[in-house]
């Protein structure tokens, strides 16, 4: 059996919850990317850096959740 401290059905629930969080953040990033591309093509430079930082924060959150998934299986 797996050595995880959680039972399989518990891990399934945890992964489903994490997946929904990750999906929400990815959709937010997609929206940021399309809005930023529109601004870039229209020569509006004001939002480029804040949008990039926001996307990086989303990535960091996602990486944190991914790390938790790896630890879950250990």
């Amino acid at each position: 059996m797996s050595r995880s401290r959680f039972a399989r059905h518990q891990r399934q629930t945890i992964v489903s919850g994490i997946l929904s969080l990750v999906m929400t953040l990815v959709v937010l990033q997609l929206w940021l990317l399309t809005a930023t591309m529109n601004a870039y093509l229209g020569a509006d430079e004001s939002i480029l850096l804040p949008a990039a930082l926001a996307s990086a924060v989303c990535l960091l959150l996602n990486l944190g959740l991914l790390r938790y998934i790896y630890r879950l299986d250990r």
Partner: protein
Amino acid sequence: MDERDSQTMTIAPDGRLDSDQPRWRRDFPIDGPQDEYIARRDFTKFMVLTSFAFAVGQLWIVVENFLRRRTASLPVREIARLDDIPIGGSLVFNYPEAHQSAVLVRLDESHLVAYDQKCTHLSCPVIPRVEETRLHCPCHEGSFDLTTGRPLGGPPRRPLTRVILETHGRRIYAMGVEGRTV
């Protein structure tokens, strides 16, 4: 529902515990519930990879913008003589690069407008329709206001890039371009 408990693990043919199995066997489990768990876990990993790609895309836009700002200002170039274009007439010219076409329209005696010819939807060339005071994109029936370059209908949402013009004597010069979001 399956009679087998969700915690039941089928023992692999070699008799070893799941945690001692090789990676490929753990990634392709025998039991349905475990397979569902693995599939969801791997999909989550793929979504994080997608998140990484989006973040790289954002960074790429920032870098591209930085490089664009570092390039020298656009050249001043003579396009035509005022006498060459009748009122209501138009002229296609290349600016700022040889492969970038733009369109110049003479609206009245002294009023000239010029825009990048690329439609802001999918880059088809726009065609001036002076009698309708608009620029028409034949690919997806987009249209832009001739005097401002702003979208009037169809798929485009951004105005056309405007070419800044100056007239010295009877000569028309392109001085630069102005991108806009609204």
